[in-house]
C-alpha cells in the first residue's frame, strides 16, 4: 500500500496533466512552426498584449500594494483592521466581476463615472483598462507579501538609520525598501503570472476595445472556436503563454535564491506602529477614498446594474431582472457549478492529504506543477488529449472506452488538477507543524494505525484542510478560464453563463447573477472568518 498509492497517484497525474501537455506541445508543431507563428503579426500582437497588460497589472498592484501594506502594518490609520479586510477582499472574488462593475462605471458612452467627467473621457476598454482591473483584483498578492515582510523587519534596523542621521523618508528608501523589495517583487511576479493567465478580463475589455486589444488567452479562445483548423495555432499560442508563466516564475525563484536577505527578527515587540499625527485624518481619508473607488465602487456598480430598468440608466430601480435567478437555465448552471465545485474541492482535500501523507518530494512537486500552468493551457491540453475516445483493453477481454471529451468530467478533472497544489500545500504545512507524538501516543494507547491517524493526526490538519477545500470550492464555483474551453456543448456552468450573458445578450441579467454570486461569496467569507477565529481561539 505504502508504495502503491503514491505510484498510482503519480501515474494518474502524469496521465491527466503531463501527457496531455506533451500532446499539446506536439500539436503545436516543432520550433519551425513556432518561428512561423512568431512571424505572424497577429501572434506577436497577442504576445505583446499579454506582456503589456501583465506588466501593467503588476505595476498597478505594486503601486497600490506598497502604500496599503505600509498603512496596515505600520500606522494608526483609521479603521486599520477593516482596511486590511477590504484590501484583501479581491482575492475571494472572481476578476470578471470587477470587470462587469468597471464596464458599468467607465464604459465610454454611458458609464456612471464617465458621465461625471464627460462622455468619452473615460474608457475602460483596452490594454490600460485590462491592466488596471487585473492589477486591482490581484492587489492582495502584493499587499500580503509586503505586509508580511514589513512585520518581519527588526525595528532596530530602521532606528539605527535614524540615529545615523537619516530622516524618516531616507530611512524608508535606504533601509526599509531594500529589505522588503524581494517580497514585493515576488508578489508582483505572481500578479504578472495571474494576469497573463487570466481570460475573462481581457476578453470582456479587450475584444470590444477599439482597436481590439488581444492577449494570448483571448486569441487561444478565438482560435479554438474556429475548430480543428485553429487548434494547432491555438496550441502554439499556448506554448508562448506557458513559456511566459514558467519564465517569470523561474526568474522569480532564482531572484529569491540569489538575493535572499535574511531578516533578523526583532526583540519580539513586533512591528512598531507610528502615529500619523496631524496628517492622520488626511491620509486616512485618502486611503479610504482609494479603497472605496477601486474596490467597493465596482462591486456596488454590479449590484446597481442589476437593479436598473435599462442598462446605463442610473437613478431608478427595479427588481424585474431578478427573475433570471429562477430561470431553468440559471438553476441548471448553478446546480452543475455547485456539484462540480463541491466534487473538485473534496477531491482536492482528499488527494492533497494523501499526497502530503506520502511524504514523497517528487509526488508533491508533480502535484504542485499544474497550479503554475495557465488555466487556458491546461484546458486546451485536456481538450486536445481527450477529444477522442480512449480505448483500453484489460485482461485481453474486457475493453472499456474512456470518453471524457465533451463531458463535465473533463471539467471536474481540470478543476481538481489546477487546484491540487492548494490541498497538498496546506496539508503538508499542517502535517509539518503537527505534533507527531499525538499519533504515537494514540498507537501506544492501543489504537490501530487508522484509528491513530483519525484520532491523532487528522484533528491537527483539519483546519488547514477545510480552508483549502473551501477556497477551492469558491474558486471553482465561479471558474471561467478553463470552463469556457471545456464546457460540453449546450451545457452551462455559472461562469460561462455569466460570461455569455455579459458579452452577448443581457448585461442586466448577468449583473443579477453576479450579485447573487457576490452575496454568496461574501456570506461564505464571513462564515470562514468566524470559523478561523473559533479555531484560533481553541
Amino acid at each position, binding site marked *: 500500500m505504502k508504495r502503491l498509492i503514491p505510484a498510482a497517484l503519480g501515474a494518474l497525474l502524469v496521465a491527466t496533466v503531463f501527457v496531455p501537455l506533451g500532446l499539446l506541445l506536439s500539436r503545436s508543431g516543432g520550433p519551425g512552426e513556432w518561428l512561423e507563428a512568431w512571424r505572424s503579426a497577429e501572434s506577436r500582437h497577442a504576445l505583446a498584449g499579454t506582456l503589456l497588460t501583465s506588466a501593467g497589472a503588476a505595476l498597478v498592484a505594486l503601486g497600490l500594494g506598497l502604500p496599503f501594506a505600509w498603512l496596515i502594518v505600520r500606522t494608526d490609520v483609521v479603521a486599520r483592521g477593516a482596511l486590511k479586510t477590504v484590501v484583501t477582499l479581491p482575492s475571494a472574488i472572481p476578476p470578471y466581476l470587477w470587470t462587469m462593475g468597471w464596464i458599468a462605471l467607465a464604459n465610454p458612452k454611458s458609464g456612471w463615472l464617465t458621465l461625471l467627467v464627460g462622455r468619452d473621457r473615460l474608457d475602460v476598454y483596452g490594454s490600460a483598462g485590462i491592466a488596471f482591473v487585473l492589477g486591482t483584483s490581484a492587489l492582495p498578492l502584493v499587499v500580503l507579501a509586503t505586509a508580511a515582510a514589513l512585520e518581519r523587519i*527588526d525595528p*532596530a*534596523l530602521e*532606528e*539605527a*538609520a*535614524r*540615529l*545615523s*542621521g*537619516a*530622516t*524618516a523618508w*531616507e530611512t524608508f528608501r*535606504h*533601509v526599509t525598501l*531594500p*529589505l522588503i523589495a524581494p517580497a514585493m517583487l515576488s508578489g508582483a511576479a505572481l500578479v504578472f503570472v495571474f494576469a497573463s493567465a487570466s481570460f475573462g478580463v481581457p476578453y470582456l475589455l479587450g475584444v470590444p476595445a477599439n482597436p481590439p486589444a488581444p492577449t494570448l488567452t483571448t486569441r487561444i479562445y478565438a482560435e479554438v472556436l474556429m475548430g480543428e483548423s485553429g487548434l494547432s495555432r491555438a496550441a502554439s499560442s499556448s506554448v508562448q503563454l506557458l513559456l511566459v508563466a514558467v519564465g517569470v516564475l523561474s526568474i522569480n525563484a532564482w531572484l529569491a535564491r540569489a538575493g535572499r*536577505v*535574511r*531578516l*533578523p527578527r*526583532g*526583540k519580539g515587540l513586533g512591528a512598531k506602529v507610528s502615529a500619523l499625527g496631524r496628517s492622520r485624518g488626511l491620509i486616512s481619508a485618502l486611503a479610504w477614498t482609494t479603497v472605496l473607488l477601486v474596490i467597493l465602487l465596482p462591486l456596488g456598480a454590479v449590484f446597481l446594474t442589476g437593479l436598473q430598468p435599462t442598462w446605463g440608466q442610473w437613478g431608478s430601480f427595479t427588481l424585474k431582472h431578478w427573475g433570471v435567478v429562477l430561470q431553468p437555465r440559471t438553476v441548471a448552471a448553478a446546480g452543475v457549478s455547485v456539484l462540480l465545485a463541491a466534487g473538485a474541492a473534496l477531491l482536492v482535500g482528499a488527494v492533497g492529504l494523501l499526497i502530503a501523507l506520502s511524504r514523497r518530494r517528487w509526488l508533491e512537486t508533480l502535484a504542485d506543477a499544474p497550479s503554475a500552468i495557465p488555466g487556458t493551457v491546461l484546458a486546451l491540453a485536456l481538450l486536445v488529449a481527450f477529444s477522442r475516445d480512449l480505448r483500453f483493453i484489460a485482461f485481453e477481454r474486457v475493453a472499456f472506452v474512456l470518453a471524457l471529451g465533451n463531458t463535465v468530467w473533463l471539467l471536474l478533472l481540470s478543476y481538481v488538477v489546477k487546484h491540487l497544489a492548494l490541498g497538498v500545500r496546506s496539508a503538508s504545512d499542517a502535517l509539518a507543524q503537527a505534533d507527531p507524538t499525538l499519533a504515537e501516543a494514540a498507537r501506544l494507547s492501543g489504537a490501530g494505525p487508522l484509528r491513530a491517524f483519525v484520532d491523532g493526526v487528522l484533528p491537527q490538519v483539519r483546519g488547514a484542510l477545510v480552508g483549502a477545500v473551501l477556497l477551492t470550492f469558491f474558486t471553482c464555483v465561479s471558474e471561467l478560464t478553463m470552463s469556457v474551453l471545456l464546457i460540453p456543448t449546450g451545457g452551462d456552468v455559472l461562469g460561462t453563463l455569466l460570461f455569455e450573458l455579459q458579452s452577448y445578450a443581457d448585461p442586466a441579467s448577468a449583473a443579477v447573477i453576479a450579485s447573487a454570486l457576490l452575496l454568496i461569496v461574501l456570506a461564505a467569507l464571513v462564515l470562514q472568518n468566524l470559523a478561523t477565529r473559533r479555531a484560533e481561539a481553541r
Partner: protein
Amino acid sequence: MAAVELIEIEKAFGATSVVKKLSLTVREGELVALLGPSGCGKTTTLRMIAGLERPDRGVVKLGGQLVDDGRAFVAPERRGLGMVFQSYAIWPHKSVFENVAYPLQLKGASNVEAAVKEALGWVRLEAYLHRRPHELSGGQLQRVALARALVGQPKVLLLDEPLSNLDVALREELRGEIASLRAKLGTTMILVTHDQAEALALADQVAVMNKGVIEQLAAPDVVYREPATPFVAGFVGGANVLVGEVQGTSFISEGVSFALPAGTVAPPGPHTLVVRSEDVVLGAEGPLLPLQARLFMGSATEYRLGLGDSVVRAVGSALSHARPGQLTPVSFRSVRLYAP
C-alpha cells in the same frame, strides 16, 4: 557642561508606568552605566534620550540644548548621537563598508573611505571591509555596530546591552575595547546593562535602576561599599536582604533572633537588614539554621542556609565538614540597617 540631562522624565505604556520622574545628569566625557534588572525601564530611558520614544512628561537636554520638552522635539537624526543596539541592527543588505559608511554619506562627508577604514581600525575589523553581514560572527557584528556608531564621532554614544549576546571570552575582549576606545576618543557614553560586573568595570558613575526610578547614582566603589537602599545592596553586591525588626541589640527575622554586631546603632522597630555573604560567619555562635546546600565555586565555597522561606547565603572557606541538613550557628560580622 552636561552632555546629557534628563529632568523628571516619565513614560507609561498604556496603564503601566515604566519610567517615573527620572532625573539624570551625565557630564562630558563620562561613562554612566544604567544598571538594573530586566524590565526596569533602562532601554526605555535610553530610547527617550535618543528620541526614539517620547517622554510623557519631563525635559531632555543634550549639550545644554533642549531636545524634548513635550512640545519642542528634535528628531533622532538631528541629535548627533551614536547608538549600538542590543540586536546589533546591522543592515543585512549592505556590506560592512556600506554599513559603516552610511552615517558619513548622509552627512555628505568627504574622504568617506579613509574615515571608514579608521573606524574599522578602532574595532580591529579592517580586514572585513567587503564582507556581507551574514558572513560575520556575533562578536564581529557587534564591532561593526560600534564602528558605525562611532564613525561620525558623535558627542554621546548610547549602548544598549552591547555585550549581552556574546560569550564570556568575547564579552571580556569587547569590554576592554570599549574602555580603550573611550580613552582614545573621549566620547561621552551611556551604557545600559543588567550585568553588574560590566557596569562596575567600565563606568565612572553607576545609576542603579529599579522599577522606573534611579535608586542610587554614584561611583562604582561607592555603590558597592555604601549601597543607598536594600535593593542596591541586593542587586549590586549580591548581599542578603532580610526584613524584620530591631529589638534592643537583636534583629528578629522570620522568628529568629540574630545578635547585631557591636557598634551597630538603630532605633527599635521594623527595619531591613543587609549583610554581605562574606560577612556571614558560620560555625561560631548565634542561632542555628539548617544548611541547605554547599556550592563549590573555585576560589570560595557558597553555603545556603534556610531562614523561613528565604535563604541566607554565606561565602567562605571554612566549614568544609558541614553537610547539607546540618544545623549551623550563624552570626553577622557587619550589617547595614535601613529604616522602611
